[in-house]
Structure formats: C-alpha cells, structure tokens
C-alpha cells in the first residue's frame, strides 16, 4: 500500500512536470503542486483498506464514488482561458479516478475536451483535444491502461451554458469524464 501511494505521488510529480512542459505559453505557469494532492489522498483515507475495495464503489449510474466522502466522484475538470494545463485542485480528484480505473480494468472512460466560445472553432477543437490529452496523460501516469481511455474534443460546440460572459465561459472550459 505504502509502495502504491509513493509510486502514485511520483507519477503525479512526473505528470506535473510533463504538463508544465507542455504549457503552450512561454509564461511561467503556477506549477501544479503535487504535495497537496498526496496529502489529500494519503491523509484522508481512514484505514489502510485494500485499494480494490475502496476504489470499486459506484453510484446507481455506474460512476465511481469518492471513497473519502461517499459522494459521487466529481467528473468535470475546469481550465483557464486558452490553457490546457490542469489546475492544482484537479490532481487529487483525477488520482481517485485513476485508482478506480486501476481497480476496475474492465471499465472504460471517455474524456471529453471542451472550450468556451471565444476564439475560432477549429482552433478550439484543437485546444479541446489538448485539454483531454492533459487528463489522459495524468490518468496514464497514474497507472491506468491506455486501452481503458478514449478521448474526444468537442471544441466550443457543446457548451453546458449557452450564455455569454465569464460565468458561462468558466463552466464551458472543461474536461469531462464519461464512464461506459
């Protein structure tokens, strides 16, 4: 167990480095911090239950549960404008998805990348793919098999909020995990 978590922490650090390296701007990004993710994951698990047990709980729709809260695990990850870099708060959550997929090798997940309406549609299609790739990279680094993951970019074509303005845009810049 101890080994598994430290391996995961290493994966998170590596993913963070890879993602930081992929940043499309030359500017300095706030580096994704691996430590809070490690603390959150390691610190909040009440007992050293086998990973397979805690990572197999699903809700009625078959989506994974958060073993820490007993609530369905969040499946939407938000991005900054014109960025495809995971926000620091996404790491811990994605790690739990990684644990779920490792424990359920028969389950597959579709990663959808989405953008807000600003910018051209084709450029956003490519940007949405970048966002899906950022999530895929992290899941693969955490030990999920590539064959379990599909991804698609919808660009700006599938907004959750059809409004205009920062509130709607913030909701639309996202990656979504859709379990099958």
């Amino acid at each position: 167990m101890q080994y598994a978590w430290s391996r995961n922490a290493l994966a998170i650090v590596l993913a963070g480095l890879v993602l930081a390296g992929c940043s499309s701007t030359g500017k300095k990004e706030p580096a994704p911090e691996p430590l809070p993710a490690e603390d959150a994951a390691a610190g909040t698990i009440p007992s050293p239950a086998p990973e397979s047990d805690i990572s197999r709980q699903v809700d009625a729709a078959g989506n994974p549960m958060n073993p820490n809260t007993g609530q369905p695990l969040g499946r939407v990850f938000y991005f900054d404008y014109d960025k495809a870099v995971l926000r620091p708060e996404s790491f811990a959550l994605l790690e739990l998805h990684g644990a779920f997929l490792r424990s359920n090798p028969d389950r597959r997940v579709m990663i959808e990348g989405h953008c807000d309406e600003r910018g051209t549609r084709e450029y956003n299609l490519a940007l949405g793919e970048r966002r899906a790739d950022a999530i895929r990279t992290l899941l693969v680094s955490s030990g999920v098999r590539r064959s379990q993951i599909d991804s698609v970019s919808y660009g700006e074509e599938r907004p959750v909020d059809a409004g205009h303005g920062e509130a709607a845009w913030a909701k639309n810049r996202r990656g979504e995990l859709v379990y099958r």
Partner: protein
Amino acid sequence: MSYRLFLFVAIIVALIAGASVASAQIAIEIDRGYDNPKKIAIVPFAMGANLQGVEDMSAIVSFDLARSGQFAPVGAENMLSLPSQPNEVFFRDWRILGVEYLVIGRAEQDFDGKLSVNYYLYDVLNERQLTSERLKGDRNSARDMAHMVSDAIYEKITGIRGAFSTKILYVLAAGLGTPGVHFKLEMADVDGARPRTLLDSKEPILSVTWSPDAKRAVYVSFEKGKPAIFLQEIATGGRTLLTDFPGLNSAPAFSPDGRRLALVLSRDGNPEIYTMDLATRALVRVTRHHAIDTEPTWTADGRSLIFTSDRGGKPQIYKVDLASGLTERVTFEGDYNARARLLPDGKHIVFVHRRNGVFHIALLDMERDRMMILTETSLDESPSIAPNGTMLIYATQDRGRGILAVVSIDGRVKYRLPSSAGDVREPDWSPFLRPPAG
C-alpha cells in the same frame, strides 16, 4: 472634415424571401463619410398576362444593389413616371430626382409557357442606353433571373463582376445548451432567401466549405461521436466519409483545382496539417511541429497553404510552401490571429483578430504589412469572401444569438442577414455559379 463624421444611413429594404419567411427586413449601414452611393431607379417591371404569383423582380434587383452599399435605389413612390419600354423613357423625369442610372423592364409569358424578361439600363446624365438583355427561364426562376439582372447591371456600372447569383452554406444550431439540440447544414441565396436543409444532425457540424466547382461541400460532422470529414454532393445529397482517424479530423479546405483537400489530423498525437489527393485518398503530412497547426487555406496557385499555429506561443497566421516545407510567419500584430482566408487578388487575407479581448474580422495587406479592422462587434468569426472580392460574410452575435453579417472589404458597408430561429454560424460564400456574362 466630413470623413471623420460617421454618418450612417440606414436603408431599410423589405426582403421577400421564400415560402418559409413571409418578409423580413435588413438594415444596411453605409458609412457615407467616403463617397456617396450612386442613385439608381429600378422601375417596377411591367408584368404581362398570366404572371400572377411571379415574384417582383425589380424589388429583388433593388435589394441586391442596395446591399452592395454602392447604390441607393429610389423608391417607386417617388418616381414621376413608370416606363417599361424605351419609348416611354423621359430622362428629365430622372434628372429632376438626381438619378444617375435607370433600369426599366417587363416580364411576359412566352408561347411555350416560360417566363421572359426584357430589361434596359440607362445612363441618365448622358441620356444613353448602357445595355439591354432578354432573359428566359421557368416561371419559378424569377428570383434567379432577377439576380442575373443585378449581376449584369453591377458589372456594367462598376466594372466588377456581380456576385448576387451566388449562394451561402451555413450551420443552424437549434436548442443550444439543451438536450434537444440539433444542427442543420443549410444552403440559401446570398441574401438569405430560399434556405434549404442539406443535413440535419443531433451532433455538431462545422467548417463547411464549397468545392471550387460549387457541386460539392466538405464539412466536419460529429455524427459518429467524434469529428470526421464528410464530402456531400449538393444536388443529390449523396455523402462520402473522407477521414475518420482517431483524434481530430477537421478544417477541410479544397485546393483551387478541386483535386486535393488540406485537412487537420491528430492521428499521430498532435494536430497537424495534411493534404489528401481526393482520387487516391493518399495523405501527405505538411506540418511537423508540436504546436497546434490548423485552419489551412490554399493560395490561388495551389503551391502554398496559409494556416493558424500557436508555435510562437499564441495563435498566429503562417504560410508554408508545400514543395519545400519552408514556413514563414504572416501576422505579427496582436496576440490572436487565426483562420485566414485569401482574397482573390492573392495579396490580402481576412482573419479573426483579437484586440482588447474582443474578436474582430481584420484585413491584412501582406505585401505592405498593413492591417485594418473591418468589424467592430464582438465574437466575430469565420469570415468568407465573395467570389468577386468585394464583400465578406461572417458570423457574429446579436443579443446573445449567433447571426450572419456582411461587410464590404473596405469596411464601409455592413448589414446583417435576418435569421428566424436558432444560432446561425459557419458561413461559406459560394464560388460564381455561372460562367461570366458576355
């Protein structure tokens, strides 16, 4: 000076569209600070017997010429006489009104049941006939014949080939942000009349592009759950799936000879531009860069592509020579320049340009490196140029709804196309649909 005063004259013209839209109005804004539109009188055409239900062609011609911004048609209620044949024309009636050009005509049903139209164009000041023509067609082709009359008049007076007989393709999205959303590929006359649905899908459609012969269209459709490129015959509706690789299959663009397609694939892990030979389906990779490379468009000689890339950190426009692979950056002003389209002169591009967080359509003279912003609204995108290079159609927003608008290539004339429902986007202006007149 008066050129600094933005004197906008709104010409409201009733648009008599097809059966689905009874009538709509377009406000045409003309910045008169530069030069006055030419005053032209298009006298209502005399209609012969048995022509009930045939569309009013002179109204369509007036509307066409008004939309160009270069003409100010005189209302029929102000005309002192209503001639329909040459011996009824008295030039003083038109000089009094300050009219420079006069168009008269009459429509008749021929012995074979077809519709025939005779029209005459006069230069009022010189009291001279500039042209006359007889057109013949089916009874239901009055609108097509009217656009042909507009094309001929426009060319005779300006020396530029008219593009009123052309069409547009666009995407209509209904119920955006709801589970019942669906997407329609639509074709309409360039004035928005006679819309026709070519494809109705529950999944997004984008990047709609005419083939150079206007017989086919390519577009990206998500109907297979991911972006794929389809080719569709306009006349038959027959469709072919062109590419369906893992990842992106997008941004298709026909080469000028119609034999190749430029497109974007991310099958090797990153969005790259390829060309495809449409006969053999053989692919050639054009870009090799870890950045996003997308939105290719061809130069007129078919030897280069102009495309968008964020290889410099932000999206900018580049040009690549297909034979050598030599790539040069085209845009430098601003931190977001994307989706370029070349003007017929090959020297200018129009593209999406961001300034102060707002997206405009801009024009760049590539030889002189001079940029001009053409549109001042927000979220303006997808510019597509008329085949005669005088106007461009683009997508913008009006009160939160996607609409189409047109702006002249000098930025002086603007109008919006009416749309009945839903979000309208991704317009593409057709090539010329007929051989040149004469």
